């Protein structure tokens, strides 16, 4: 980078080549007014407010577009410049009709700020204040976004963010000159356009022209109290501002600031529009105790006493291992820590697990074996600079929308090559150089074939293999007999495409693998993960910047829940329960006798209930009655267990089975931390008061523990984090004061440690990277005449998991009202099914009625169902066969039949 000396208003500033005057000015605290600038966007120079004088230039130039040069002299505040800016502002007010007094954006609006700063005359501001008769525009009928043309200053930021950042290109200008206004392409309603309702357009609008429809009239920006916290949905960990009305105490709108890590002001539809659940009137406000099959409200004393006494009794009669607990990837690190400590130290069992079992258990198992650490190797930010991105089994734009922005950026702006391996033609395919639509459940065959190509064509990183890894010979032996032709038959992918993918991945300077449930949710999930680890190690694509193996975690704090040891085999920080040294350490730390045996996993717990081995079950913030495989069996178990406690914010499908329901507080009502998918520990902050008598999860657990004879008491969440840091080396340096502004990524061993951007630099966590020979094993259930379709389940963009939260949002329900099954066009024709028809999907385990969604984005013979909808629960159909190592069920493959319901 070339340094450049620039004088701005007499101040010496040092900038980098390629920087604009505005960027340099911002860096140096020099304020240049601007309206069309957003650091996320390419400069446009359209508002003309940032005009400055540059010595030697022909006329005024826009600071946002003009690049600095060495020796440049800039004046930002001359008389002419101020005059021009004032004219520009007057012109904008001539166009902008609308009074600040009634505008929701009052307090945030930049036009308002500059109007005051430049003392634009009242008569100018009011000259256009008579609003035109409102004419329906493209946002009419859309629940999420409202466009008010009278407040629009045509800066084009909404259009640009939709095109440049979201890459959705739903918006454009129509007409010219004074008639120009924002709309969709061809002026169709937003509801029918390509809009994904991310609301990024609102986030960048400098005035109140674009606003959340539901937020209008609920409080002006100047009166809202903003609290920065971490989004509760997926694992990206977006920093989100909850703006709360002091009057109502409710969240009015969710926003985000540019510059924050990791999302830089970007949010997705769920983060921006999915916050209604917090103040939903169906929230649990009182403890409930089931009496004669019906829930009755109870006092906390009564409920806590009952839970403590029943669990205590079960422990006494059947032993500690007859009790199991499901912790929650939705809860904070502190709560997960307390929950597993309660299970281990108070109850005395390692039967603690959580939904990571259903998503990334195979990652934790596989990557820990290969590398020594089961997490994303790189930070989200590094994706932008990867030269090759291999996305396999991750529908990133829908499940991790904000991470997908980085992938798209890498491809579109940095020329990265993108390989997408997914049975469905997912949205990312639009950006991909290659799409590999492998048959569900054939990933090992695909990856082994790629490894074989890399070995055969000598694309190996031999130095890396020699210095950094072990057991390469075993892998070589295992793939010796792999043939590309055979792999092509198994995967249904042309051999040449497999070869091309292998070569592209191997040759790129920095290659990174992104994967998710498409890899993990198989009975061969661990094998799948191991083969990806093998692929990265044969090419040396690991342990470097923008280069690695990156499992995208699905829940806001699934990484943290694992880190906290809400797993049956490890204590916090992945310290093995079966290790006597570790056990000694925790017995000392907690002052309790601990079990030396590892506990049961989720599905094993359900099965153990059938065998009457588990009598008491404590579920905190999970909904297995919708999320677990083979629901008929799961629900039966939930009904059969002797004593069930469910602690949640809503009366979920699972809570219906409970003996005691304890009302907890939502993420917006508590302090704590979440650890996102890139291992970054981030703050969660209380923004609103909890409803009714709902209590903090960790306080509830502490109270029960105390009642059961193991006293636990903490003054506040920060103290719990201090205890976590003291027992978990990878969290050793984490404390609230250090993560106040930006979170830290573990491992962070001590107070001086800066956190770890990417893992395995120079040395793997386990020392040497270990190759594991894996061979292809077909999925447990294969199609036959009766069940001719391969059914996969997964997420969609708008809903989240069991819909407990997202289905409380009017915006989301408008766009995603109910479940469906995706079926390929030819298959649909053969079965006489039209788009929208009611169909029955049936497997050996169950049967579900839903709507058909006929598509060409899926291969013939394969069908897909989202699992969010209780009225069409996909998990009635899924198989509860498990991966032998990770015990993850095979959500992604089972045999199904479809028929039209007449």
């Amino acid at each position, binding site marked *: 980078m070339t340094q450049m000396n620039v004088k701005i208003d007499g101040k010496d500033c040092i900038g980098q080549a390629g920087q604009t005057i505005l960027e340099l000015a911002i860096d140096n605290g020099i304020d240049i007014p601007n309206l069309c600038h957003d650091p996320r966007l390419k*400069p446009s120079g*359209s508002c003309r407010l940032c005009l400055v004088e540059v010595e030697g230039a022909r006329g005024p130039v826009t600071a946002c577009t003009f690049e600095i040069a060495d020796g440049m002299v800039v004046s930002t505040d001359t008389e002419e410049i101020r005059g021009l800016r004032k*004219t*520009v502002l007057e*012109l904008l007010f001539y166009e902008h009709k609308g009074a600040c007094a009634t505008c929701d954006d009052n307090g945030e609006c930049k036009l308002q700020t500059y109007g005051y700063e430049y003392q634009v005359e009242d008569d100018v501001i009011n000259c256009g204040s008579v609003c035109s008769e409102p004419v329906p525009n493209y946002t009419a009928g859309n629940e999420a976004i409202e466009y008010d043309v009278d407040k629009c200053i045509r800066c084009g930021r909404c259009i640009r963010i939709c095109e440049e950042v979201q890459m959705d290109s739903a918006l454009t200008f129509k007409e010219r*000159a*004074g008639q*120009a206004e924002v709309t969709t392409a061809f002026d169709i309603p937003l509801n029918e356009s390509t809009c994904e309702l991310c609301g990024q357009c609102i986030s960048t609008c400098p005035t109140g022209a674009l606003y959340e429809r539901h937020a209008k009239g609920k409080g002006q920006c100047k009166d809202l109290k903003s609290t920065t916290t971490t989004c509760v949905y997926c694992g990206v960990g977006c920093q989100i501002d909850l703006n709360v009305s002091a009057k109502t105490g409710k969240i009015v709108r969710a926003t985000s600031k540019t510059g924050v890590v990791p999302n830089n002001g970007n949010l997705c539809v769920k983060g921006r529009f999915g916050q209604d659940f917090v103040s939903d009137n169906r929230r649990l406000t009182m403890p409930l105790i089931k009496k004669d099959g019906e829930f009755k409200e109870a006092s906390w004393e009564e409920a806590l006493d009952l839970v403590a006494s029943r669990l205590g009794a079960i422990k006494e009669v059947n032993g500690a291992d007859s009790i199991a607990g499901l912790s929650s990837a939705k809860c904070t690190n502190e709560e997960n820590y307390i929950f597993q400590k309660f299970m281990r130290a108070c109850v005395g069992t390692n039967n603690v697990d959580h939904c990571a079992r259903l998503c990334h258990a195979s990652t934790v198992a596989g990557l820990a074996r290969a590398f020594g650490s089961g997490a994303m190797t790189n930070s989200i930010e590094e994706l932008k600079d990867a030269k090759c991105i291999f996305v396999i089994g991750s529908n990133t734009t829908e499940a991790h929308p904000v991470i997908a922005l980085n992938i798209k950026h890498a491809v579109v702006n940095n020329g990265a090559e993108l390989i997408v391996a997914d049975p469905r033609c997912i949205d990312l395919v639009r950006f991909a150089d290659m799409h590999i639509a492998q048959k569900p459940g054939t990933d090992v065959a695909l990856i082994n074939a790629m490894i074989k190509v890399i070995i055969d064509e000598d694309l190996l990183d031999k130095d890396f293999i020699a210095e950094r890894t072990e057991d390469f010979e075993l892998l070589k032996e295992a793939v010796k007999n792999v043939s590309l032709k055979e792999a092509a038959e198994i995967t249904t992918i042309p051999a040449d495409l497999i070869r091309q993918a292998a070569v592209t991945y191997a040759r790129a300077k920095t290659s990174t693998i992104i994967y998710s449930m498409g890899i993990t949710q198989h009975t061969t999930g661990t094998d799948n993960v191991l083969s990806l680890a093998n692929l990265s190690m044969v090419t040396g694509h690991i342990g470097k910047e923008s280069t690695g193996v990156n499992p995208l975690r699905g829940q806001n704090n699934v990484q943290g829940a694992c880190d906290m040891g809400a797993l049956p085999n490890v204590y916090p920080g992945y310290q093995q329960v079966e290790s006597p040294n570790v056990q000694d350490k925790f017995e000392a730390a907690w002052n309790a006798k601990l079990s030396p045996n590892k506990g049961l996993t989720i599905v094993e717990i359900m099965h153990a209930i059938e065998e009457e081995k588990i009598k008491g079950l404590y579920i905190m913030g999970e909904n297995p009655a919708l999320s677990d495989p083979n629901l008929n069996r799961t629900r039966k178990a939930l009904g059969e267990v002797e004593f069930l406690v469910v602690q949640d914010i809503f009366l979920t499908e699972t809570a219906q089975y409970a003996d005691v329901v304890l009302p907890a507080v939502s993420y917006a009502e508590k302090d704590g931390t979440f650890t996102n998918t890139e291992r970054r520990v981030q703050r969660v902050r209380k923004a609103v008061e909890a409803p009714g008598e709902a209590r903090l999860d960790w306080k509830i657990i502490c109270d029960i523990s105390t009642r059961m004879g193991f006293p636990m008491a903490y003054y506040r969440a920060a103290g719990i984090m201090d205890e976590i840091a003291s027992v978990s080396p990878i969290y050793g340096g984490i404390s609230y004061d250090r993560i106040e502004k930006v979170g830290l990524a573990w491992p962070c061993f001590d107070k001086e440690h800066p956190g770890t951007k990417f893992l395995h630099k120079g040395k793997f966590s386990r020392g040497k990277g270990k190759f594991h020979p894996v061979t292809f094993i077909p999925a447990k259930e294969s199609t036959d005449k009766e069940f001719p379709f391969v059914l996969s389940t997964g997420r969609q963009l708008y809903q989240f998991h069991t819909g407990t939260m997202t289905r409380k949002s009017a915006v989301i329900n408008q766009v995603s009202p109910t479940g469906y099954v995706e079926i390929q066009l030819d298959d649909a024709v053969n079965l006489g099914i039209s788009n929208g028809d009611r169909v029955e999907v049936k497997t050996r385990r169950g049967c579900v009625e839903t709507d058909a969604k006929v598509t060409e984005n899926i291969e013939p013979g394969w069908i897909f169902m989202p699992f969010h909808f209780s009225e069409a629960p996909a998990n009635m159909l899924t198989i509860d066969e498990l991966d032998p190592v990770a015990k993850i069920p095979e959500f992604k493959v089972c045999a199904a039949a479809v028929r039209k319901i007449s």
Partner: protein
Amino acid sequence: MTQKSSSISDFVSWQQRIKSAVDAGRSQIIVCGGTGCVALGSESVYDAFESEIKKQGLEKEVLLKGTGCHGFCEKGPVVVILPDQFFYPGVKPENVAEIFKETVIGRKAIEELLYVDPISSKKITYEYDIPFYAKQQRNIFHNNGRIDPVDVEDFIAHNGYNAFVKVLQEYSPQDVIDSVIKAGLRGRGGGGFPTGVKWDICRKASGQEKYLICNADEGDPGAFMDRSILEGTPHAIIEGMLISAFAIGACTGFIYVRAEYPLAVKNTRLALEQARDSGLLGDNILGTGFCFDIEIRQGAGAFVCGEETALIASIEGHRGMPRTRPPFPAVKGYADEPTNINNVETFANIPLIIENGHEWYSKIGTEKSKGTKVFALAGKVKNTGLVEVPMGTTLRAIVFGIGGGIENDGEFKAAQLGGPSGGCIPTQYLDTPLDYESVQEVGAIMGSGGLIVMDQNVCMVDIARYFLDFVQSESCGKCTPCRVGTRRMLDILESICGGTARMDDLAKLEELAVDVNRASLCGLGQTAPNPVLSTIKNFRDEYVEHIEKRICTAGVCLELLCYQITEKCVGCGACKKVCPVAAITGEKKEIHVLDTEKCTKCGQCYNVCKFEAVKR
């Protein structure tokens, strides 16, 4: 007929064959097929000649040719009979048989069909004697009235592609650039940037690929020289682009032409096909290893797409909106790669420079403005059409020499040069030589060469309003000063024309004009205030009169007109008869009365009164 040449010698021998087949003494009937003449019915004239030739069985002896625009559009359909160059304006199909018999066969002029010079009132027989042509220097348009636009052989017979072949044989890319620099050619699109320098920047810019664009998005009202060149000699543009591509190292070119120019699009498309079929476009051109091809992209007619960055955005498939410069397209243009962009007329000059040498070229014109310039002469002038003169020719020579003076022997008031981005030149500057610098000094711009002549019946405030109305509605809406500023200015002008303005509105207008010029993003906005500023500068009294006295002397601004019947009225009743709203009353032979409340100011009474009794 085309024939693929795979080497230079192939091409040379093909050209020789074509030339040797040409019979110079053969009778030729040239019918202008430019858009203007077509609109006036030249196609049926052509058809009539065709059937006449057939009838007479003289297909071999007489060659009938439809050509591009001859420039004298006002007199269309124009027919020229070669070899003598008999010139007939306004030919109708019923004249054809006689022309054929008398002039084509008999080689005699038909007196009553000849052109009458408006100045001398004499009949003129030959094309070269007509003052409109005689006073021009038609270098670019030389072939326009002579060759068949869609016959590559005809073009080659007229030494077409010779300059390109010369470049391939004798020039390095740098030689070409040096020649163009030394020739002193400046961009004809309006900016007047030295063409060779621009090529040099593009050649030296680093990029993976370079692109060449021909800007045929001619948007100035009244200007149509680029259309005429593309219609008449599309191969000349292809040749100019080939030479440019060779110089800068481009292998992909675009011609961005408005869809409203269907004939230009059609002829260019045919010419491109012929050039490809002849081995003059595509891979390994004439076996030299040079590769270049051209695509046509049609614009939807937005004025702003003539601005180079908006044009590039449009070619790329985006909404035609300009972006800030730098970076200039020569460094970062189409697909973010170095892109050279010139307009049609500029490219038309290139083969001339190469073929005749830069020394020859640089002798034409003034010290800083070389070559010829085409003006689209329009307005209140006797002869309208396309006029090509050496740079530096005075406005007077064009308006009174070539244009034949003011219509109806009126009084010259001003000429608007450079279209809506230009300015007006009043009487005192009639002797200004039209070159880039001089024109700018008097407050106008060369622009693409639109030249609209105005007489005493034109209101300069209304003219400013007209042009501003045009640019404001053509503003793309991207930047604030242009989008809103021009609208505000128009509001003020409308209030001046409407009689509701105050003097401080004029001050506001001037202030705003300066700010819009200084603060706008692209040339469209920056130059939009020019007509306003130049009319205020030269005709301030008219503005003041409008505002303070509520008078429009030219009688154009309706709101300011007040019709009255004076004592001169003899009571003939003519005005009463024509008044559409019965605002005039009065008995026969008595002075009539006009009810100003009812009057709609249509002016019919004024026009019909033979006694100058109606005043306004």
